[in-house]
Every structure is written in C-alpha cells, then in structure tokens.
C-alpha cells in the first residue's frame, strides 16, 4: 500500500521541522523518502492541515489490576457515560476508568497512537498485558514496579553486589515484558505491610533497615548500567504531603547525576507556606529541573471534576482515603511484590487545595524551560481522565483562556499562585515535543514519535483552529502503522497495536536463586510467573517490538 499525504504543515521536532509544508509518503506502514515514481494507491490532500506524529501518552493507567478494581468500584461513574455499540466500535463505558475497548477508541479519536502503563506489578504483569491487549488502536508498553518487593529489599539490605541487583532488574523486565522500571514510594509499600505509615527519603524501613534513597540509587544505577533507554521512573516518597517539595528536591540531588524520571511531579511539589500550610513548590522544582539535565518529569496535571486515583502506593492511598469521593476505597497488599490503592476523588475548583494543585501543575509546565524534559500527562485517571488532554493543551497554549480559568477558581489559591503572571504560551512545535517526540526519545522508541523516513506511519492530522481544545479533540485523520483508523474524529478501522519492550542482557544464573525463592515463599512456580511470547502474540493481534539497550556504553 502506497499513500501520499500532500501539502500538510508538518511539525516534527525530532527532525527539527517546525511548521514546514511538506509531502509525506507511506509504503506498507512505514514513512519513506519518496515513492520512487510509483503512483500512490491513496492520496490525501492535507493543504492547510497540521500534521504531527501520532501522540504518545507516556504515563497512563490503562491496564492492570488496579484499573479493574477501579472499574468494579465505580459502577455509577460508568452508568453516567455509556458507550453504545456504534459502527465498528463495540459497546463499553467511559469517563474515569473506561472499559479497555472504549479507552482505545477514545485515545485514537484524539490522535493518540501509543500509551504506556506505568505501574505494572511483576506478579500482575500478565493481567496488565491481557488488559492492554484489549485496548484497540494503541501501541502499549509497561514499566514494571520494583522497590517494595521482598526479593529486591532482601538483596539490598543484605548488601548484595550491584551486579546481582542489575541481573534481577533485567530478569524482571524480561519476565514481565516491560520497557522500563518504575519505583513507587520506594520501600513504602512494603513498609506499610509492617505497619509503618510514613517513609521519608532518609528514613529506615522498619524491617529491612534500608532507606528510599538507597533504593532509588540502586535501581537508577541498575537501569542505567543495563542501558535501558527509559530512566528509572520514580513516583517519589510522600505523595500528596504538604512540604514534600523538600523531599522531591532531595530526591533530585540525591540521585547524583544518574538519569531519573520523576512522575506526576505535581503531587510532589507542595510547600507549607501560608495560613493553610499548603503552598506551591513549583518554582523551586522547575528551577531544580532546569539545572539538572539528568532529570525528566511528567506533570500529572489535575483538572476539575470526578475521577479515581489508582496507584501502587498503598501507603499513601490509605493515608488519603479519608478524602475519597464517593466515600469508598480499596487498598491491597499484593504477593510480597507490591500493593495498590484505589480512591475515587473529585477535584473542585472552589476548593483551596484542589485549586492550588491545578495551579501547581500548570506552573510546572510553564516554568520548566526545556520541553524535551517535561511530558503532558494527567496521570490518567489520577489527576483527570485522559479525555481532558485537549483542554489541558489549550491551557498551555492560550494565556488568555488560562487566565479566564484562573479567575474562576478558589480566589485564595489564585492569589497564592504565580500562574497569572506567567506569559508563556506553548507553540504547536512544543506541544508536538511534549506529546510525541519527547516521549518517544525518552522511551527509546526510535521509530515512533517522528515523521522521518523509516518511522512507523503513526500520523495525526488536524485542522488548525484558534480554539486549541477543539483542534486537539477531533483530528481529521489518524493513521496507525499506515492504516487510516480515524476520519473526522470517528473510528473507521479497528487495528491492534504493538507491545514495546526492551530486553537487557543479564546473567541467567539469577534464576537459580529466584527459583529457590519462588519455591519457598511464593505461591506459584517461577516458570509460570514468566510471561511467554505466545501469551502476547498467540492470538495474532499484538506484536512484540524489542528496542535496543546500550549496555556497557553507560556503565
């Protein structure tokens, strides 16, 4: 199949293209320099249209047990947003924790072609993959969680050699079919099982005696030395705690130059100034990020309305459960591996804390200088459902609109925020970095997130409009691996995405130790724990794509 996309205005930051009128050519699902004189089978006239690579959500909770717990927890939320069977789309439901099919349709309708699940528990990775396999139209991948699993904590507390830890980290990535490593409240999920209710960066775990700082350094080093492209993905200590900006700044300095990605940093950027002992730490965080090139962040912007927080951080979720709206929540201790907490939440614009959280996220977006090191997320569904992304993009691109919204929130929060004095407006080029090029680079996806020759033809075409929310809500065309899947915001073809992974080298000798550990302490056999290729590819829908690591080059 040969396709020509004619005369679109292309924003392709990975290749330095900023609003140039160009033709694009697709041959059998890949972008090529030209069709070598061949007549295209299809041609699309994109004159006057904006062309970008398909968008990539690098942190979205779309698969795994906690999402399905959230689904079971919120039937009333689903009833309010039914998705009838329509055209090619099967029935489902939407809003805070949509059904998997609806998740895929709605992402694609917004021009997204990939989403990465950031909290894959090793023991629950099989479920995460099965759920993600039922998300149509999106490429997927997962960051597998370590740092509160007993095997790792035993290694660390017993002073194991870093090489052994590296082997375990690599083995976990392989067995869970992941593309990165995530750590959530390092050690804290485990500490909660020992009835410890807080664990600050330099506080010792009640049983293992190790600190979150040690855990972070060990895991960040392992990821780095294994050559995994995506830096250690860190959900830090003290999520949601006033004053946690100090912890976050210490986390940044404490990693000693190793690459580290701090996720949903909005929830970790709170000061204690003011009458209510709650203030914005965004300026200090942004300053630290601007000064530390080894750090990347995603924001986890909150937007007002009902949602549900679904996190591996059982310690903090339990602490915050009193704020649940509606008043119900689930926490779980999981298999000496991790945990989870699911707490519904309604962010209100007239609530001081929520309004200031909203400001803190936007301040962070606007005060971080380098768009390649900040990513557009709401930590779906924690800050807001992913369907709010077009609204968020407008807030970043339209100062006047942003200030109108600022005028409507809790006035005390607005008065405490510097947001109204920030003039920055993101350009289309920068939005393309935040939502495509930067994410692909961060994850090591060399053939996604750009429109150069050799890239997979994941392409989104918009009509430029003054109202950027409208523009990004309904693309004219979305191509997935060269196939037209969305036209005028409607799904016209359903395809299934790929699974992106990495497979760092390691010493298989670790399995001897792990096999004994599984036999003695776990409830399943090691061989049944490891996810096989046939489990992903067996039904012919998904394909496993392995991206290169650069082991050795970084150690």
């Amino acid at each position, binding site marked *: 199949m040969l396709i020509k996309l004619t005369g679109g205005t292309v924003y392709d930051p990975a290749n330095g293209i900023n609003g140039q009128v160009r033709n694009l050519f697709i041959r059998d699902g890949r972008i090529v320099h030209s069709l070598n004189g061949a007549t295209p089978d299809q041609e699309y006239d994109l004159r006057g249209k904006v062309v970008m690579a398909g968008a990539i959500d690098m942190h979205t909770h779309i698969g795994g047990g906690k999402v399905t717990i959230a689904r079971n927890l919120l039937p009333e939320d689903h009833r309010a947003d*039914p998705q009838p069977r329509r055209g090619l789309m099967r029935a489902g*439901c939407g809003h805070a924790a949509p059904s998997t099919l609806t998740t895929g349709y709605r992402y694609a309708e917004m021009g997204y072609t990939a989403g990465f699940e950031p909290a894959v528990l090793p023991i629950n990775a099989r479920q995460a993959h*099965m759920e993600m396999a039922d998300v149509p139209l999106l490429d997927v991948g997962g960051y597998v969680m370590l740092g509160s699993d007993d095997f790792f904590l035993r290694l660390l507390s017993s002073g194991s050699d870093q090489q052994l830890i590296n082997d375990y980290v690599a083995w976990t990535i392989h067995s869970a079919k992941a593309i990165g490593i995530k750590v959530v409240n390092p050690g804290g999920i485990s500490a909660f099982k020992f009835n410890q209710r807080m664990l600050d960066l330099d506080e010792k775990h009640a049983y293992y005696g190790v600190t979150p700082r040690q855990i972070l350094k060990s895991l960040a080093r392992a990821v780095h030395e294994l050559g995994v492209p995506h830096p250690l993905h860190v959900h830090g200590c003290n999520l949601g705690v006033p004053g946690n900006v100090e912890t976050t700044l210490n986390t940044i300095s404490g990693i000693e130059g190793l690459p580290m990605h701090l996720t949903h940093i909005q929830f970790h950027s709170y000061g204690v100034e003011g009458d209510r002992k709650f203030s914005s730490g965004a300026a200090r965080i942004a300053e630290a990020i601007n000064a530390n090139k080894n750090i990347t962040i995603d924001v986890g912007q909150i937007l007002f309305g009902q949602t549900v927080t679904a996190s591996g951080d059982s310690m903090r979720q339990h602490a915050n459960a009193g704020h649940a709206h509606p008043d119900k929540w689930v926490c779980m201790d999981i298999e000496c591996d991790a945990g989870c907490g699911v707490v519904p939440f309604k962010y209100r614009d007239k609530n001081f804390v929520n309004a200031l959280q909203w400001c803190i996220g936007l301040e962070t977006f606007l005060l971080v200088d380098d768009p390649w090191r900040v990513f557009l997320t709401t930590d779906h569904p924690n800050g807001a459902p992913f369907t709010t992304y077009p609204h968020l993009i407008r807030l970043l691109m339209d100062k006047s609109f942003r200030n109108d919204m600022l005028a409507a929130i809790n006035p005390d929060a607005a008065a405490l925020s510097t947001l109204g004095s920030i003039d920055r407006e993101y350009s289309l080029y920068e939005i393309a970095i935040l939502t495509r090029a930067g994410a692909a680079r961060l994850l090591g996806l060399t053939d996604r997130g750009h429109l150069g020759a050799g890239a997979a033809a994941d392409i989104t075409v918009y009509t430029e409009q003054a109202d950027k929310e409208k523009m990004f809500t309904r693309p004219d065309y979305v191509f997935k691996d060269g196939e037209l899947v969305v036209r005028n915001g409607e799904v016209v073809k359903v395809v299934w995405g790929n699974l992106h992974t990495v497979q760092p080298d390691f010493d298989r000798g670790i399995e001897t130790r792990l096999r004994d550990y599984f036999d003695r302490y776990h409830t399943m*056999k090691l061989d049944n724990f490891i996810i096989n290729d046939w*489990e992903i590819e067996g039904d012919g829908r998904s394909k496993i794509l392995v991206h290169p690591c650069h082991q050795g080059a970084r150690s």
Partner: protein
Amino acid sequence: MTDNTSAKVWESVPSPFCGIASDDLKIEVCGSSVRVLANGDAVTVPGFELAVTDTAPRIAGEPAALEDAVRQAAAILKDARLPVFSGFGTDVNDTRAALALIDKARGVFDQARAGGGVRNLLVLADSGWIATTLAEVKNRLEVLLVFGSDVEAAFPRFFERFVWNQETLFGQDPAKREVIYLGRAPSGDAAVSPDGRRPQVIECAPEYLPELAAVLSALARGASLQAKAVGGVPVGVLQGVVDRLRRSSYSVVTWVAGQLDFPHADLTVQQVCQTVTVLNKETRAAVLPLGGQDGDRTASQVCAWLTGYPTRVSFARGFPEYDPYLNDAARMLSEGEADALIWVSSLSAAPPPAAAVPTVVIGRSGMRFDKEPDVFIPVGVPGIDHAGHMYRCDNVVAMPLYPLRDCGLTSAAAVLTAIEQSL
C-alpha cells in the same frame, strides 16, 4: 511447566479448576485420558480426570457438523429478542469471545454462580475494603479469622499451602499461627496445626451470622454493647476475638461468599470488611474473599475490563448495563424474560438448568443433560486441550494454562467467534 515427553507426564501444571490456582500438579496424559499423579484434591482431580465422551456437536440430539451447529446456534440467537448467556466456567479467551458475541447479539451475561461473587462485589462498590493475596497470607499471617465458612470444603489445599507452610520470609514459625472459626465449625481437620492445636471454634446458628458480623464491627470501633450475648455467643468472647486481631501484627479475615447463602448477605460481608478497615487504624489486617472456582473469577475479571462491569451485564439496549438483580439468568428464565439460553462452560461440566426456551450449550465434553439442548457443541478445556489463562480467587494472579493433550476438540472461543461472525 515441564514435559517428560516419553512418559507423557507433565509437572508444575496449574489447575484451572481450583480458586487458589495450585500450580504444582503432576499430570499424566494417555491419549485423551488424564490422571492427576500428585497434589490433586477433591476439586482438582475430578476437574482434570473427567472423561472425554462427546467429540461431535449435536442438533436436537442428532450428530451434526460443526458448521451446521454453529449456523443453528446463530439462528436461535437471531430469533431471540433477549438471549441470556450463562454458565461461564471459562478462561480469559473463551470469555473474551463470549462477550464479543453477547455484545453483538444484545444479550445478557450472567454466571451460574454469580450469587457468591455479587455478595462481595456489592460491598466493593459500596464501601470498598482492605484486601490481601495468598503470598501475603503465606508469609505474614499471624491470626486467621474464618467467618461463617467452611474453607477446606471449597478449597481443600488452602491450609496446607498458605497457613501451615514450612517457612516464611520474615522468620515467623507458621506452625504457631492461630486460626479462629467464627459462626461455623470446619468440616475436616485441615485447620489443625502441624503440632496438633485445633482452631478456636465459636459456633452459632447460621441465622445469627449477620448479627455476629455487626457486633464484631461495633466492637472493633470501640462500642460498648448492652447485649450480653449474640446468637448464643457471649459478647465477651467476641471482644476477645477483636482484641486478638488488634494485637496481631498481620491478621486476615476470610470467608467463602458462596456459602453465605442468605438474603442480603452482602450487608454481612460489609460488616466483616469494615471490622478489618477499623483495625487498620492501629495495626495491619486484611480481608481475603475466597471464591472463583471453575473460572468464575476469570469471567468476572474479563467482563470488568471489557465492559466496565464485573458480572450480570445486559447489552439489550446496545450498551452494557449492570444490574445484579435484573440480569440474574435464573430469574430471567423463571419469569419468562429471556427467550434463549446460551450456556458456555469449558471448564466445568455442570449442565444448564432445563429451560423452556431454545438452549444452546457450548460446553465441556462429558457434560450430561437432564434435557437435551437444541444445540450442543462439545469443546476442549483450557489448561488441558488448549493454552489459556485463568484468575485466582484473590484477583491479582493470572495463571498461564497449557495444552496437555490433543484429542481434536475445538475451543469455546473458536465456536463463539464463529457464531458471532455468522450473525
């Protein structure tokens, strides 16, 4: 899982039949016959060893080609205004295929044994809980409280595998664990510790279980009660139970919801869960709802992620609607609301109820009927005849299932997809 090919003996085989998904089974396969050589139990052995009888579909009791049976099943669905799909002893892929068909046919999805699961799901959706999983029990448990249930009857290996295990991660001696049965005595000796200690048993008549749960919850909150006894159990004894749980560094409260078969049992489950939630203000405790045998948990999980709702979902209006009362298949059939029954069960050989409406069975070979269905399509078993996946009772662990033999049986997923495509 390993294959000693010459002997046709498989080791480390996961059981798709038991809710705790034991994966240490040793299975021998000779032709189409299967024998459990090691680690079987009263649930697992019959699950694996049921003989293959039917290999060909039947229409109205007469042998038929698969294509004809599929066509006839589709015709029944086309004629139906509100078909109900039940059974659902299935694995992930079978359930996926069934839900695609149900969506297209505008049918209702129910599980034959949804009742027990619903008692838990209603609590989850109303107030939530603090739960745990089997490996946490195995390594952390100090005190186990069994509420109103006979665990070993439904989960014969629960105590062996997770309570009286040899060692724990944290140096605790599992043999010293305490087990308390509240409301019902165990039927066997599985809860007796390796050194012969019997569990503490506090019995009362079943009709007092709701009151017992309410008192437990009240005592956990620190209430002082006027009543001296509940259902014949002195309040002081119940206070002792609460105090013991509160002193424990990690206690687990468990029940088998399928056995709490009385009206509004969800309210009782809720009180039990709230007891545990309150305990967590000071110490660590968790609930462990047990259930999910023969694919029950699996079908509920798959339904939840594909539709947003866990079970008893109607697609009659073109989108999923959850109603655990209205979408009860047995009720719909008895009250004349459903006009076709599609029974899907690739794990369990439990047959459908005799129904007055056209009935299609996509079921395990070996199923026996009181009334011959209009269409019967025998299918293979995930974990014996096909690869697949199943869920354990604690919702977290999905096990891979492996093909152990090839006796030519097609999968339920393939049959369901064929029916969907011919609609």
